[in-house]
């Protein structure tokens, strides 16, 4: 550092700098909060809309000028939602499919991502590129072929048909692979020295370290079970296996056969509530993250 700069730094009025710094910091913080609150509002609006819609009467819902606060709070929508649709059964079915498919899917995603992130084998890059390639074809095109396949396996009207075809998600494999790649190589080497097999290293080290990502995947996968519509309707639209969205779409109709959205929204809010609780609970795991300071440098 030249003499000149040293002098400049020394001659700074630290007191003034402190107050300036405080102002700058406060402004920055205010800016950050303003931005976050605005974005929160933007993101929250549909949720708000879902809730208030669930409290409107059908007539109010159909009004030309949308109301931002229901003219009359119609709690009876919730009662109707609960009594008309067989919500308990729908919920259990969905929870079963959601949980089983999430667990299996996590397992497959983990071992596949591990192979791509950590193991060396011939044609790895090519295979990975091919995998990415499969994401690029619109899935709607697969529906009929897969339907025929599932049918030939005799899986129609089973939970299997709802779970198995969607166990592999290239989307999630790719996500987890990215995460695995960020785990320092030394940990793997250390585990080797410590006499660990690849398998054990995967479950004892990589999986705990990738927990935030795995929880993100869990959330997305669970929500998938909650929102899926076309495929479940096709393969298992019977009372024993029907999932929430299908059940709700069918249940609430007005006389002319149109969907009674307010009641449907109430039902959606009802079945989403437990899911929301689970997410709130998982949130801290995503946010906690795992500090990487076991690794220096």
């Amino acid at each position, binding site marked *: 550092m030249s003499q000149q700069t040293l002098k400049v730094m020394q001659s700074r009025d630290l007191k003034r700098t402190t107050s300036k710094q405080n102002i700058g910091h406060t402004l920055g913080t205010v800016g950050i909060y303003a931005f976050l609150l605005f974005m929160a509002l933007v993101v929250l609006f549909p949720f708000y809309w879902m809730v208030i819609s669930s409290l409107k009467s059908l007539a109010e819902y159909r009004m030309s000028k949308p109301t931002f606060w229901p003219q009359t709070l119609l709690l009876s929508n919730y009662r109707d939602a609960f009594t008309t649709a067989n919500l308990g059964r729908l919920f259990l079915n969905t929870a079963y499919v959601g949980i089983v498919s999430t667990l299996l899917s996590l397992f497959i995603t983990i071992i596949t991502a591990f192979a791509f992130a950590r193991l060396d084998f011939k044609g790895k890059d090519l295979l990975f590129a091919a995998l990415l390639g499969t994401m690029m074809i619109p899935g709607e095109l697969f529906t009929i072929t897969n339907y025929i396949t599932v049918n030939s396996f005799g899986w129609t009207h089973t939970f299997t048909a709802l779970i198995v075809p969607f166990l592999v998600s290239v989307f999630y494999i790719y996500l987890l692979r990215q995460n695995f790649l960020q785990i*320092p190589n*030394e*940990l793997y*080497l*250390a*585990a*080797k*020295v*410590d*006499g*660990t*097999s690849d398998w*054990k290293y995967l479950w*004892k*080290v990589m999986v*705990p*370290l990738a927990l935030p990502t795995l929880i993100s995947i869990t959330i997305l996968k669970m929500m998938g079970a909650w929102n899926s519509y076309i495929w479940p309707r096709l393969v298992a639209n019977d009372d024993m296996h029907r999932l929430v969205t299908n059940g709700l779409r069918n249940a609430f109709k007005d006389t002319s056969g149109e969907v009674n959205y307010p009641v449907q929204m109430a039902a959606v809010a009802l079945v989403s509530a437990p899911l929301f609780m689970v997410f709130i609970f998982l949130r801290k795991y995503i946010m906690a993250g*795992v*500090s*990487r*300071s*076991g*690794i*220096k*440098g």
Partner: protein
Amino acid sequence: MKIVLQHLTKIFPSRNKKSDEEVVAVSDFDFEIPDGKLIGLLGPSGCGKSTTLYMISGLQKPSSGKIFFGDDDVTELSTENRGIGLVFQNYALYPHMTVKQNILFPLQNLKGEDKMTKEQMLQRAYEAAKLVQIEQLLDRKPSELSGGQQQRVAIARALVKMPRVLLLDEPLSNLDARLRLQTREEIRRIQKETGITTVFVTHDQEEAMSISDMIVVMKAGVVQQIGQPQDVYDDPANLFVAKFLGTPPINVFDGHVKGGKLYVGEDAVLEIGGVADQEVAVGIRPEGFVLDDNGPLVCKPVNVEVMGRDVSVVSTHPASVNPLVRSIINADNRFDLGNESVRYTIKPHKIFIFSKDNEERLRFEVK
């Protein structure tokens, strides 16, 4: 457990796909590490010392050559089965596990007859922790530890399964100066206590010299010299080794041998025999200078650094390869900076000459 390296060679394929150039990381390393010794692998970064260590650990497979632990050929044995301990440069502690879990981890992986009960494991883990004096930290996460503490945890983890061989990869590089001093003593102590054959890699010659039973100096994949630290220091095989060992470093001058005399620049410093007339590089250890008003080597003083017991005189010399010449003299010698010049005689065993062609040592007789 002695470790034998036979013609160990490691060649990495070129990273650049377009060129076929290969990188020879380690070339024909032949060495027997005696049982129970502490060996320092020394060299600048990229010299192949870490690669050698990794080959001993099994994390990298040699391109050719063999490795023996005792009489067993372990070349093809995978890391998990070699029974070694390795301390990584950045410690590689599992960030999601507590100190205790980290230390227990290798024990939990033992198989067959080595398998231990939970109590045994805890006992062993506690002993290992005690050995490195971290027994009060067992329930912390690595992120809650200081660098030195993390380092000890890493050593404890490496030691806990009583490895046949302990390998340390730049174990001190992430520590501050005081801790480094303290820790290297600790490593020495632990090694002596356990008697485990230990190989450690460092680029810091002082570190290597201070605790090793033997050092191996490497450059660009080729072993330059092997020996006890003092022997290597006193009798370097080539200019590289001479330059690499010693603080302050050796002073190198352009010189020549002519008619039985060794010239440093134009100053004839020594009468020698056994070397033909030729241009040479002359290395003089800083402690090889003796103040002498009639000495043959004439330098221009620049600065005097008082180091307590010793005094370091910084001067210039027209033939010096580096800008400054540094000598260390006893503090009893009063030296006045006001002088135009400073004159030295040289201790003959502190002066080395090297061929200009290949930088190999040229041995001479003092006449």
